[in-house]
């Protein structure tokens, strides 16, 4: 996990006449938790979608570990070492919790359709090892006892944690978490935060998009503040909190930290 630095350079994104992002550049050091904050409509979710390959940027480059990934399709970025969760849950709700996480390990397998159809030993090995990976992750994140239930029967908080487990199953160097705390009750917030810190300690870099400023300041090594699609401040939590530009951008939205 040593050298997997994420470099975002001059990312811009236009939807028709709307400028969603403009010249966004920042670096996530290996092992850091870097948070993206900003008022609603600042472009945080767009940036997440661009980083993960869900939508293409209009301009700019993204490098992971020195290698350009901005032209790669979403599934290839997973192979390159990047995984994400979603602001609005994207469960495979027809599958069990364990199977959801097994899908997360897809990029680690090798067997394709034809070895699947033939039921080859390689295909079986893939299934066995993906299940082992998935179960270990669920165990680590405290969801082992829910492994066999359908994903749709999880509570909101459990589902958020399951998405983290699913993203981790690919063995990423960098994890993109899109509002993992939104809508969670207090106890679950603590739990997810603990999971995050734990994953970060074992070497996974994290990009966190979050509205809850208090928790962002608590967890982050670096904070990037977006407003109207541009970076208005960047630095340590202390630096950002004291920046007049940030205070100004947040005026009118003081309830965010509630």
């Amino acid at each position, binding site marked *: 996990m040593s050298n997997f630095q994420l470099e975002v350079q001059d990312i811009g994104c236009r939807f028709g006449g709307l400028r969603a992002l403009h010249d966004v550049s920042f670096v996530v050091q290996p092992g850091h938790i870097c948070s993206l904050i900003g008022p609603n409509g600042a472009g945080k979710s767009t940036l997440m979608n661009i980083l*993960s*390959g*869900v939508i293409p940027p209009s301009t700019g480059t993204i490098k992971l570990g020195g290698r350009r990934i901005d032209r790669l*399709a*979403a*599934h290839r970025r*997973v*192979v390159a070492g990047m*995984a*994400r969760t*979603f602001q609005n849950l*994207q*469960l*495979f*709700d*027809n*599958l*069990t919790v364990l*199977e*959801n996480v*097994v*899908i*997360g390990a*897809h*990029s680690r*397998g090798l*067997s*394709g*359709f034809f*070895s*699947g*159809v*033939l*039921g080859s030993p390689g*295909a079986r090995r*893939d*299934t066995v090892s*993906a299940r082992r990976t998935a179960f270990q992750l669920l165990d680590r994140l405290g969801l082992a006892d829910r492994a*066999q*239930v*359908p994903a749709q029967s999880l509570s909101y908080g459990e589902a958020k944690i399951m998405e983290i487990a*699913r*993203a981790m*199953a*690919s063995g990423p160097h960098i994890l993109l978490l899109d509002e993992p705390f939104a809508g969670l009750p207090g106890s679950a917030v603590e739990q997810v935060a603990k999971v995050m810190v734990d994953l970060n300690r074992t070497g996974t870099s994290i990009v966190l998009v979050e509205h809850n400023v208090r928790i962002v300041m608590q967890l982050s090594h670096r904070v990037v503040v977006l407003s109207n699609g541009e970076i208005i401040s960047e630095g340590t939590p202390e630096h950002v909190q004291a920046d007049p530009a940030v205070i100004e951008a947040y005026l009118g939205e003081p309830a965010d930290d509630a």
Partner: protein
Amino acid sequence: MRTFLRRVLSNEPRMLAVLWLVLAAWPFVVSNDYLVSLGSTFLINLLLIASLNLLVGNAGQIGLSHGAFFGIGAYTSGILSTTLGWSPWLGTLAALGTGACSAVLLGLPTLRLRGHSFAMATLGFNAIVSVLLVGWVGLTGGPNGLIGVPSYAIGSHLLDTPTSFYPVTWLVVGIVMLGLLNLEGSRAGRALRALAASDIAAACSGVPVFRYKLITFTLASTLAALAGALYVHQNNFASPDSFSFSTSVLLLVMVTVGGAGRFFGPVFGALMYTVLPELMRSFDDIETLVIGVAMIAVVGFLPGGIVASVARIAARLRGDTGLSDRRVE
């Protein structure tokens, strides 16, 4: 007996093996040409519905061209063996090739589209194929159909009776069903169910969504073409209206009625698709009415199709809930 039943019912490969043994016994049990031939028809219908189930039930792609690929298979092998005098076996291989190539050509531009575009495109494709089958009289025989298609033969032994043809479908469809069962539990099979639920989450989990959709569509359509080849060499005849848009819709209905996304759902769908027309022969249009009512009844009252209800009843009889929760294993 009870423990035997329990062991069989709790394990899909065993259930498939038992089903295939029963099907092996079918020609000896009924020893009536009409019923044996109906058995072959059932197996061909199972091939059609199970392959459509892979595309619709597992991968979640609403394809409305299965009837067309069924027809492409039938006419490819039928024309090659009739007009050009090819061996029906070679014709069948050619049918697989034609089915696969057409599916790739149709899937490449349409499977990237979101929402209902794929359903619309496949519907349009089926309409085009129907028009060609009727209109290209020189090649297809037009509305009168393709007549005088030869049967399969092994050496000089013609497989032109129901009892000699039946083993061919039994073997071919059995191999396909085993392959589909293997696929269901494999890395690729799981990925298909995932992309059916959320293609964005699947892509961000490392699943090459477009490629998997294309492979699945091609595989399903090729199997439909295989069914077409078997059909044309069973009946020695093909008529354009067997492969119309309404066939595609009916097959889709049978996938749902049987139990979409469930391995044994198509068995019930194929049973219904085979038996209903025979029962309704003297009533003409009532068949459509019955199918319509069945569709509404299943969608309204039997979530998961007939197979899920059968599983629930079986589980209740056994006093546990094992089978109904199979999908949730």
